[in-house]
């Protein structure tokens, strides 16, 4: 466990007033406390645990000892704490993904950011199935053709022949374009014009 490093005042990035004070999401609530003539203003997003704390008293204070210990966990490289990860703060460095691995998977699962068919139980399971750095994955119009063919089937089913004719023209146009591109050996140069 490491202490969260104190930031140098001069190096602090200016605050962004339209964001939640805790997790930097868009604000939904402006909470103003007036105590003995002093006014404290807090900006919070809708799902902020800080908001729950303010509105429902000490709702989050009933954590177990183990959890309290874990909450103090911090990344040695950048000082990001587990509490910050749980409240949706941005991660501070690549190392955070190793330190808070369990928590990250849990949070991603909880907010529906992982496909349901993905196995998240195994700690060593590779979750990423896309391309790796340096890998070139060229795509051609076939993906669009698949989508258009699906749409064509749908319009024929609903007997919308005017739409079907439009889709057929677009499919033909794309097929011709793809063929001519593959013949000329170029799959899309950066400066291509319409």
């Amino acid at each position: 466990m490491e202490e969260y490093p104190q930031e140098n005042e001069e190096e602090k990035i200016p605050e962004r007033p339209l964001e939640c004070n805790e997790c930097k999401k868009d604000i939904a609530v402006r909470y103003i406390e007036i105590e003995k003539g002093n006014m404290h203003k807090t900006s919070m997003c809708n799902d902020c645990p800080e908001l729950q704390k303010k509105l429902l008293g000490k709702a989050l204070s009933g954590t177990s000892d183990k959890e309290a210990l874990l909450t103090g966990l911090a990344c040695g490289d950048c000082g990001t704490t587990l509490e910050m990860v749980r409240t949706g703060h941005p991660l501070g460095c690549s190392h955070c993904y190793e330190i808070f691995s369990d928590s990250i998977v849990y949070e991603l699962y909880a907010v529906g950011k992982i496909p349901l068919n993905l196995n998240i139980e195994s700690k060593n399971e590779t979750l990423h199935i896309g391309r790796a750095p340096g890998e070139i994955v060229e795509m051609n119009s076939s993906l669009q053709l698949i989508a258009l063919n699906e749409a064509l089937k749908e319009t024929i089913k609903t007997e919308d022949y005017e739409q079907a004719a439009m889709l057929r023209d677009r499919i033909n146009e794309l097929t011709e374009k793809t063929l001519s591109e593959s013949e000329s050996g170029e799959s899309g140069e950066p400066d291509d014009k319409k």
Partner: protein
Amino acid sequence: MTKNNRPVSSFLSEKNSWKENDNTVWLSTSLSLFRNINKFNFPGKLTTEKQKGVVGLITESLLKKSTSEKFFVCKAEDLGPYDKEYIGERFLSTEGYNQAHAGEAFILDEKGEFLATINVRDHLHLQLIDTRREPEKQWNRLVRMETALGSSLSYAFSSRYGFLTADRDLCGTAMQMRVFLQLPALIHTELIDDILNETADESIMITGLHGNPTEVVGDILVVKNNYTLGVTEENIISNIQSFAGKLILKEYATRKEIKSTQNSEIKDRVSRAYAILIHSYQIEAVEALNALSLVKLGVDFGWITGINAAALNNLFFTCRRAHLLCNFTEEIAQENLAHKRSEFIRESFKDVRLTI
């Protein structure tokens, strides 16, 4: 703020790809890749000095790799608030670039299709806007740029989490695809909710133009990928294309129905929208965007003449604050802006006629 001291708009305004965009329903696609450099903490945990070092590193790599394209590099500290807002409007961003500060930077191409933001949440955010409905081609261009840069910058990557991003919700492919669809017929006949429920797909998210799922501006829905981890880039592109394709078909079918039944409710809304645009003394951007969408629908039905879809799409940008200000050489006071917008739209509508 005047046109003369606004470097971004001066660089881009004549190369507006939206001027030729005559799309009626599908407006554009935006493809983004988020990347971080391996040996540095993410921007939120870097000092301003180190952030400036990252800006130098990325800028140098990009300019060195690309000889064929002309890029414009602008540091956030050198830009005024309206220039930053202009970039946000142009690239249909929800990031709030107007708060960008020293240590952050933007790189744009001449056509106004490419944007790289540096140190805004991640070290590098590469974005391409496609207005020709060729997302695969733009994807290939984006990957080539990312790969060329990656040969000199080592990206933060793990086999378990893929490309590592400051926002954990974006790790994996760290790719975001957004398709902008203008669906006035579905929205004004109130069919949209049922259709979205019918076609619901957990891999897809729908928001409004400003990123809010419940606030629809200008009848535009943004279809974007919900997952970046556990899916391939091909999956993302194909799912979104298929989903957007279904919505487009439903929009066309509804338009056909409105036209054949001469729906008087829609006729009334189109007429009122036209009247607002030509008779208002002052108008806010959101009201103008909503009215422009209905006028565009009216043009599609032949109820309104004297303007085409491309001009209306262009007006969609030029009536927003930062773009609007570019049209004036003199300084415009904030309280006078709504009136100036009104005048500008009226001028663009001088040949437009309602024929219902």
